[in-house]
């Protein structure tokens, strides 16, 4: 009975914190059936009360993954811990993860994790996410993404009719939003560098499109490409040394690769079709991209060494914005079959294609998590553009609406140090 209840559960909650503001709120709209019950005991506190409640953050992380159910009663696993202030705004944090269900004797619990840290007050939130990652990996075997970040564009319209665009970066749970660029002109296609320290994007400031690379930590940025026409869809190579991009200076949009050190350009497609949205394979030897050479947008693969182009997608009349899963075995993309735009995933080994989103609204801009388990995308809800997440097996669905305005064009960061 409990399992059926959890299958149908839709937890709607807003995350409020006086210390860390969340631009996006996170609502789990569908969790896996058979979510693992886990108990998170409140951490004992010694000394000054810490500015972050670690147990709460860990609970929310695990609950929002859709794969855990926070239980105050019977559970498979138990987490408890302690926070002790050690002076100078520093805290010693310890926690244990214990397995509960195997023992016949309820008081017997095998300890799976036992860790201790010393951090400063403003590192407590990051530490909580790190603890969530450790628990998640220990139990599921999959590396957690609780310490990753999201980039996205916020669009706000004033009552006077002007529009403001903000390129923003936030924690994976929506906290600690940090604006990287504010503009009265559109910003598009944010792309994280492989080390997560820089973001490339297209900006229409000064009434023409150009590609910039901006350091996330400092906000310092460099102009990368400003040719006549389109400068768009930047994509970092796996070794971080090159940027694939789209330029229409030849007369129509073609794929180019720029060596970031030398700024030398190599043109990879040489035709008059629309070619756009390049994305690198994990081994760096090929690119997949969107092209309408067959009459409507489909995904094609370009072998960089040979220049050979082969078609990848055959399901549906429209496939665009494709990118590889981290292991290179799948491609996520935007797909249109009969009217609605959905996020889909193609298994490259079997050729099987699955639609992951199933809503009454159009979706856009899929971006896969660095552990390959979830896809972040844009969608419509309640008259606003919001973000969503869906598990790559379709089992978990999350919605992330913005507190005000519209959110679009998201990008999931890589694993961060």
């Amino acid at each position, binding site marked *: 009975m409990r399992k059926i209840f959890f299958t149908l559960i839709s937890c709607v909650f807003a995350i409020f914190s006086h210390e860390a503001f969340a631009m996006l709120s996170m609502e789990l709209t569908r969790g896996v059936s058979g979510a693992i019950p886990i108990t998170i005991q409140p951490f004992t506190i010694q000394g000054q009360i810490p500015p972050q409640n670690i147990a709460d953050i860990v609970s929310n992380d695990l609950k929002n993954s859709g794969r855990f159910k926070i239980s105050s009663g019977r559970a498979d696993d138990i987490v408890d811990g302690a926070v002790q202030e050690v002076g100078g705004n520093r805290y010693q944090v310890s926690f244990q993860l214990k397995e509960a269900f195997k023992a016949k004797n309820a008081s017997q619990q095998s300890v799976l994790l036992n860790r201790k840290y010393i951090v400063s007050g403003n590192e407590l939130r990051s530490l909580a996410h790190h603890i969530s990652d450790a628990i998640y990996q220990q139990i599921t075997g999959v590396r957690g993404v609780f310490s990753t970040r999201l980039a996205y564009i916020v669009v706000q319209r004033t009552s006077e009719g002007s*529009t403001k665009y903000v390129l923003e970066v936030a924690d994976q749970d929506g906290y600690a939003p940090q604006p990287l660029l504010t503009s009265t002109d*559109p910003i598009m296609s944010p792309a994280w560098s492989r080390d997560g320290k820089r973001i490339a994007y297209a900006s229409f400031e000064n009434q023409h499109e150009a590609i910039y690379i901006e350091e996330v930590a400092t906000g310092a940025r460099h102009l990368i490409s400003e040719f006549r026409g389109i400068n768009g869809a930047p994509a970092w190579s796996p070794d971080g040394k090159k940027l694939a991009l789209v330029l229409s200076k030849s007369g129509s*949009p073609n794929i180019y690769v720029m060596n970031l050190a030398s700024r030398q350009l190599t043109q990879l497609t040489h035709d008059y079709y629309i070619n756009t949205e390049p994305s690198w394979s994990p081994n760096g030897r090929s690119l997949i991209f969107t092209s309408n050479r067959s009459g409507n947008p489909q995904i094609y693969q370009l072998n960089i060494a040979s220049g050979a182009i082969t078609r990848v997608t055959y399901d549906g009349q429209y496939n665009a914005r494709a990118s590889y899963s981290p292991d290179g075995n799948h491609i996520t993309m935007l797909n249109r079959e009969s009217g609605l735009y959905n996020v889909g995933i193609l298994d490259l080994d079997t050729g099987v294609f699955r639609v992951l989103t199933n809503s009454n609204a159009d979706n856009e801009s899929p971006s896969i998590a660095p552990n390959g388990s979830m896809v972040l995308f844009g969608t419509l809800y309640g008259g606003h553009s919001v973000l969503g997440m869906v598990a790559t097996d379709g089992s978990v669905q999350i919605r992330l609406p913005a507190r005000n305005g519209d959110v*679009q064009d998201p990008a999931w960061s890589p694993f961060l140090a």
Partner: protein
Amino acid sequence: MQLKNTVKSLVVMGSIALLSACSAPGHKGQGDEAGADSYGANGGAQTSGVAAGSSFGDETGGAGPQQSLAKRTYYFDYDKSEIHEQDKRAISANANYLMAHSKAKIILEGHTDPRGSREYNVALGERRANAVADFMKEKRGES
């Protein structure tokens, strides 16, 4: 030739207007797509329309020269950038006007509906604005 200079098919301007439309919440778009406009859109784009003039001395005549000139929104079929036959007269009229008024400037904005891939829509919008620009350049020297 003057026309080539004045018709700076600022197709990226179209992208600005396009992206404003893209961001419109709940805007589902229609089956047919809007084409080139010559009026400004929000988002800080600086535009100037065809200079309003009361003299049409250079008009070659024919039915409704003012209507032709005033028609500045051209629609395209879904995912296409070919100009409709019925728009060619209006585009020619505007091209002729530009040739006759050397100080006039226009901005061509290519639009699409906001659904689907944003990057693809920017490219399609540019293609549409280019289609109108190319047609206008072709028309120079013809009446």
